[in-house]
């Protein structure tokens, strides 16, 4: 972003990478897949790079409003310095915080989740799915993320993206508004679960496996971790794969 600003260029959109997208080895692949899609579609985008900080979501959900606001304020300062108007992110938690919670602190942006952005690119004909892996006839199930679905009523955009793959989209019993959490939201990602009889991601993965899908599509870095762990726990990692929407689109394009 700094480079673009120095050259007096304005990006179409700022890609907010998020901490998982920057540091988590598995999710970095999603970041790279999404960037490749943006490049191939000719989208002029920017990232903040090392100037980006955590949005503060995990701190706020855990109850630490102070840390949240410190991070949020400094992010808003950076975003406003570059006069950012439009943001896209592959993390529903970043999406929710940037979109719904930054305005109260003075940060007003148009914020899209990458599922919405991908749908727009596909609808506008900027992303065409050819040249890569064929998904026809393969069974894919989509796991709704709480912070995309219930929190922000985004249920259809990720499904539209998956439909573009021409795969066989199968729903879990609990989907859309009834979708079951992966178990990582609200700060759970950063602590051991409380005592109980089962882990939430195991409950969810059992449901996902029941659909008979060979691919579990996710749209959130935390869901990615939890679902992947679930598949490993059930020793199905050979037959069932967990991918983010962006990775599936990149595969279909042969990127």
């Amino acid at each position: 972003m700094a480079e673009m600003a120095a050259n007096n260029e304005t990006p179409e959109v700022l890609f907010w990478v998020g901490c998982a997208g920057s540091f988590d080895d598995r999710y970095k692949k999603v970041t790279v897949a999404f960037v490749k899609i943006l490049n191939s579609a000719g989208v002029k985008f920017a990232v903040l790079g090392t100037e980006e900080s955590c949005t503060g979501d995990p701190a706020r959900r855990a109850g630490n409003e102070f840390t949240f606001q410190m991070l949020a304020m400094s992010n808003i300062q950076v975003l406003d310095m570059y006069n950012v108007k439009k943001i896209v992110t592959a993390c529903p938690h970043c999406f929710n915080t940037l979109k719904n919670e930054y305005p109260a602190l003075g940060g007003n942006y148009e914020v899209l989740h990458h599922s919405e952005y991908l749908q727009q690119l596909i609808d506008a004909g900027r992303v065409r799915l050819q040249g890569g892996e064929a998904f026809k006839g393969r069974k894919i199930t989509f796991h709704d993320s709480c912070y995309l679905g219930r929190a922000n009523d985004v249920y259809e955009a990720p499904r539209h993206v998956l439909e573009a793959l021409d795969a066989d989209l199968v729903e879990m019993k609990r989907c859309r508004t009834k979708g079951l959490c992966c178990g990582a939201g609200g700060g759970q990602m950063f602590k051991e679960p409380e005592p109980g009889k089962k882990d939430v991601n195991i409950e969810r993965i059992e449901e996902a496996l029941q659909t008979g899908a060979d691919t579990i599509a996710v749209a959130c870095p935390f869901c990615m971790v939890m679902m992947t762990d679930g598949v490993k726990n059930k020793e199905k990692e050979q037959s069932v794969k967990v991918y983010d929407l962006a990775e599936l689109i990149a595969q279909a394009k042969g990127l």
Partner: protein
Amino acid sequence: MAIIQQTIFIAALGAVAWLISRRVGIIGRTIRLGKEENRTDQPGKRLSIMMRVAFGQKKMFDRPLIGFLHFAVYAGFILINIEVLEIVLDGILGTHRIFAGPLGSFYGVLIGFFELLALGVLISCSIFLIRRSILKVERFQPSRHREMTGWPQLDGKLILVFEIVLMIAILTMNAADSALQDLGSAHYPVAGDFLISQWLKPLFSGWSEGALIAYERIAWWVHILGIFVFAVYLTYSKHLHIALAFPNTYFSRLEPKGEMKNMPEITQEVKIMLGLETQPADAVVPERFGAKDVADLTWKNLMDAYSCTECGRCTAACPANITGKKLSPRKIMMDTRDRLEDVSRNMLANKGKFVNDNKSLLGDYIQEEELLACTTCNACVQECPVLINPLDIILQLRRHKVMDEAHAPGSWNMMFQNLDTNQAPWKFSPGDRFNWASAVTDSGPEGNSTAS
């Protein structure tokens, strides 16, 4: 004789009115213990939500059969009250079926319609009772949900028995009335057989006029006194939802479910720390961060607690509860209400002022373990048929734990520390944040590689 009945009736009516208005006053004052929060914007949108969700019971129809049965009870409750108006007028004036004359033949149609509703209520409540007692629907079972032990369990069944008795009383009363009409009894003007109760008339074949009059009178009194007792009872019971569902949906949150309320008192402090603002001379340091007790919550959180009818749809959808954790969103609401009732009794006993009882919602009612199990997934909020928000309470209590008591699991403290020092929840150097970009260039960028 008639004048005694009238006197007793008017006295009972007055007592009920007094008891209810007193109780409404207490509940109103208790709800106002909560903090201010403006929920009066966008009245048009609010009205439309109330009409759909409370009046139209939209969310109940997520489960069509149960939605239909519940709607039958609800419609019966509202419409049969028109007949209660006649009963009350008869009671006060010492008349019998005061509307029968003026309405003519339409009266029979109207009572027939009420009887149909009464039958609907009777059948629905019987099915509900069977579900609770014999089919043992999971979310009502105390063996699985500790908050359903004792009174809440009894309360749920009692209300159903109550309604069944009331409906039997009105239907058999009408049947006895018809039988008396057939006998040409002096005080029972001919209004014709009624739609449902005519089938109950054989029950009274062979009864003497005196016995029929006695039964009709007893059923009349059971019905109306039952309604009076029920009206007072519901203000102490989970059944208060029949009234509060309306304001509670009207004042529900219009923001996206994912949005957490900002804490302006923190914003000011953060701005000062970042050098964006200077310390104002009149800065007020809040005495408490987050919520520890009911008075720290907003009035809407408290209204939510009184609106809860303990149906447990929230708990049945809660990922933490499903997997055996201690958290139950229903219990959060019931605990809040129990604490409120304690506080309100305390205030009544101390001339309207709350005297410290060394108890608080957090700690004495809701335990930390419950709060920590929440994934903030909003499933409970999504499920509630009257738009209660248990998550809002959970998050305010968490804020108190972490900011006021500085108490959090060690791994959370580690996460906070990472966020404070390297702006990521994990221990990574901020300088490495952009390292992923090498993977894009390695595999050959296409066009726009100035993405930095």
